[in-house]
């Protein structure tokens, strides 16, 4: 058991771990020196109380679960974009579109590596491209042949990602890992905004960078009914018991719906993610 290694691993996700445990650097150094004198048997106890203090009520197991869940989603996103770039060279047009998809792919890979590093020995098994099926069992047969289909699935992934992180936030409450998760979450929202603009430029006229009210008041504003599950409840206009529609002049139902993204539960996200995983590799 190497306490310094453990702290270093945590520091990768939680830059403030040392500050949380003890804001005084000198005292921290004393702790390491002391560690040499503490008997090995007593060390786990000392560690336990240290982390309890640093991370409040959330148990490390719950944090590990959330991070592994996030890691699975990031693997899926990474493979989805990476395969398009390396195996379907004519799919994404050269220039701005290819640059944007490359930027997004690189962020997803960075997220995979960040989460893997943070989880270290607790990281879930790797998800390889071979375990995925981005046609979703034939729902999107042209996902790597037709650019617009590819963008539609991409948007489904990004908007799901945004909603998934949001749903897990309470499990990380008060924990420094929450900040990291939020920093990933808003990057996914930036991706979603851009993919929406790419789709709008490729036939989805009027599709907004933010999730709006679907036609006839439905929750899915993308016009792709196959991804209805991704947009469940996105037509909600009541937040924490407060009705947003009409809260001020000009705030229509559409504006109310647009101003708040909704969350998805873990079970809802798993159902969506499993559409893109082959039998035997589902979450």
């Amino acid at each position: 058991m190497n306490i310094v290694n453990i702290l270093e691993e945590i520091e990768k996700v939680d830059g403030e771990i040392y500050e949380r445990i003890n804001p005084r650097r000198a005292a921290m150094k004393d702790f390491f020196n002391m560690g040499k004198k503490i008997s090995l048997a007593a060390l786990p106890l000392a560690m336990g109380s240290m982390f309890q203090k640093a991370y409040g009520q959330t148990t490390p197991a719950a944090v590990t679960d959330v991070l592994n869940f996030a890691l699975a989603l990031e693997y899926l996103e990474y493979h989805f974009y990476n395969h398009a770039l390396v195996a379907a060279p004519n799919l994404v047009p050269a220039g701005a579109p290819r640059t944007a998809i490359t930027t997004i792919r690189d962020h997803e890979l960075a997220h995979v590596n960040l989460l893997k590093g943070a989880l270290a020995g607790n990281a879930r098994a790797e998800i390889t491209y071979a375990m995925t099926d981005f046609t979703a069992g034939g729902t999107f047969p042209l996902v790597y042949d037709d650019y617009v289909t590819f963008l539609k699935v991409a948007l489904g992934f990004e908007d799901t990602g945004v909603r998934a992180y949001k749903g897990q936030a309470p499990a990380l409450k008060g924990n420094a890992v929450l900040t990291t998760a939020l920093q990933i979450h808003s990057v996914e929202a930036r991706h979603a905004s851009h993919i929406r603009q790419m789709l709008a430029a490729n036939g989805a006229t009027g599709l907004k960078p933010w999730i709006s009210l679907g036609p006839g008041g439905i929750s899915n504003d993308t016009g792709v009914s196959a991804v209805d599950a991704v947009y469940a409840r996105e037509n909600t206009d009541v937040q924490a018991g407060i009705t947003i529609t009409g809260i001020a002049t000009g705030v229509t139902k559409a504006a109310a719906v647009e101003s708040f993204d909704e969350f998805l539960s873990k079970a809802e996200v798993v159902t969506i993610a499993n559409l893109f995983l082959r039998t035997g590799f589902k979450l």
Partner: protein
Amino acid sequence: MKNLEQEKLDMVLEESSILTASLQRRSFLKYAGAGAAGIALIAAGCKKDRGGNPMTGTTLDFKDDFGVLNYAYALEQLEAAFYIQVASNPPSTFSAAEKLYFQDIQFHEIAHREFFKKALGPAAIGSLEVDFSSINFTDRTSVLGAAKAFEDLGVAAYNGAGVRIKTDAYLVIAGQIVSVEARHAAYVRDLISNGSFADLNDLAASGLGADNAKGLDGALTPDKVLGIAGKYIKTKINVINL
């Protein structure tokens, strides 16, 4: 001997960081004071309301969730005021689609502002006085630059404040709002330079706490956010229990 020297060095490092911290606080207070003095000249005709009086300023007490929600309320007030001005009189070079989307954003920020006001009830701070003198509202570049600054800062603010929230429902609400701000930020950034929607290197260089190698967006503590936003706020904001 070596240990002693190292310990001395550590102490010096620690003391210097304490010095920096207190200097930062002092310069922020100095700034806030200057803002209050500036407003004093035109404050005579101002409506006095709870906490928003530019003479006495307003206080954000971070001891509980009300402090964090009021902090968000303050930032949403600022954003709403900015977009109301843009949407009502956009730069002449804005396209029809751009005018429409800036109207959308205006209503999103108004909805956020009014949500916090209602959720906070009697605990809400008053209305802030804004200072947009640094923005040229007839100039597209100036307006887009300010919009980018507001949105990127808003994202970093929510990301950095989330860990302070103790109530599940409010934490989820903050998450529901920050992703919409991030969508705005990406849209505005793409208007300035297509493809810069998530330029994390730029966000890091702007001092917002992003990290491109890790794929992380900005995250800033409230004191840093208010230090940056202070340029646009006349009302003196006191921060306690941070």
